[in-house]
């Protein structure tokens, strides 16, 4: 993956497949400490211990169309390569939380990339799921809740192209304001 934002898009798809009705995506950056924390937490069906244990194995997958499952292994590798950490907490019926911590000063740090584009894709392609996206850079924070937008749309689908275009710009502008150094 060329950007961590693509890993986010990919790993969050697992939450979608797990039947989650609520998915929280946190991207928290501390520039002084050179750390970036990415957390994807869902209230989906969760996994048993054995499944969690086998998840980082690229040759483990529940799919039948192919024999490999690269999503989690790639994300884990990206974090550990930087000297960061990776963790999955899950229990059957209790959802799953995937947490990756990156050292941003490592030469092996993959650029974060366009997270908002990933969030936009997730939100608009999964109308039935409530997404809460939190982007924090040092003290500045932007929180987006898809439920509020859905309510405002009053029946107009989120995957309406005009809505998707608006949302993409809305997310990009607000996140950019958080990422920009304070004047």
């Amino acid at each position, binding site marked *: 993956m060329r950007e961590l934002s*693509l890993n986010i*898009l990919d790993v969050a798809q697992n939450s979608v497949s797990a039947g989650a009705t609520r998915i929280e995506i946190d991207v928290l950056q501390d520039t002084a400490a050179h750390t970036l924390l990415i957390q994807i937490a869902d209230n989906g069906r969760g996994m048993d211990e054995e499944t969690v244990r086998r998840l980082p194995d690229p040759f483990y997958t529940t799919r039948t169309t192919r024999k490999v499952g690269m999503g989690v292994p790639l994300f884990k590798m990206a974090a550990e390569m930087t000297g960061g950490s990776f963790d999955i907490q899950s229990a059957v019926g209790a959802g799953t939380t995937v947490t990756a911590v990156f050292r941003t000063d490592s030469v092996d740090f993959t650029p974060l990339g366009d997270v908002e*584009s990933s969030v936009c894709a997730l939100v608009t392609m999964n109308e039935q799921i409530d997404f809460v996206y939190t982007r924090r850079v040092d003290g500045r924070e932007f929180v987006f809740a898809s439920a509020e937008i859905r309510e405002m*749309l009053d029946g*107009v689908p989120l995957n*309406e192209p*005009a*809505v998707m275009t*608006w949302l993409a710009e*809305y997310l990009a502008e607000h996140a950019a304001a958080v990422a920009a150094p304070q004047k």
Partner: protein
Amino acid sequence: MKSVEELLAIKNKVKGQMSVRSENEEGNVRVLVGMATCGIAAGARPVLNALVEEVAKRGLNNIYIAQTGCIGVCQYEPIVEVLEPGKEKVTYCKMTPEKAVRVVTDHLVNGQPVAEYTIGAATK
């Protein structure tokens, strides 16, 4: 900054068209973008964005863009499938944002599938 007022304006505009649209539901075209690990790694996200942007720009309101998983031919990702009612499914492979724009103009607008981008052409 984009405001919620703009979103409300979009909502009202779309609401006005929706009653017209639901009357001929069978004319709706579904465009599916493969968004599993393979698709994402190969560049599905910019392809999806390009499709959305072009469809929005042209104001096409019978097109539904959705995502799908891995269909098992990862080497041909990013894959885009076009499903038109009463017609055979068209599978485009190794897509790029530029190709996506052409699929919208040639196939979705003018009804001419872009043969050279299809999986049939790629596997010859």
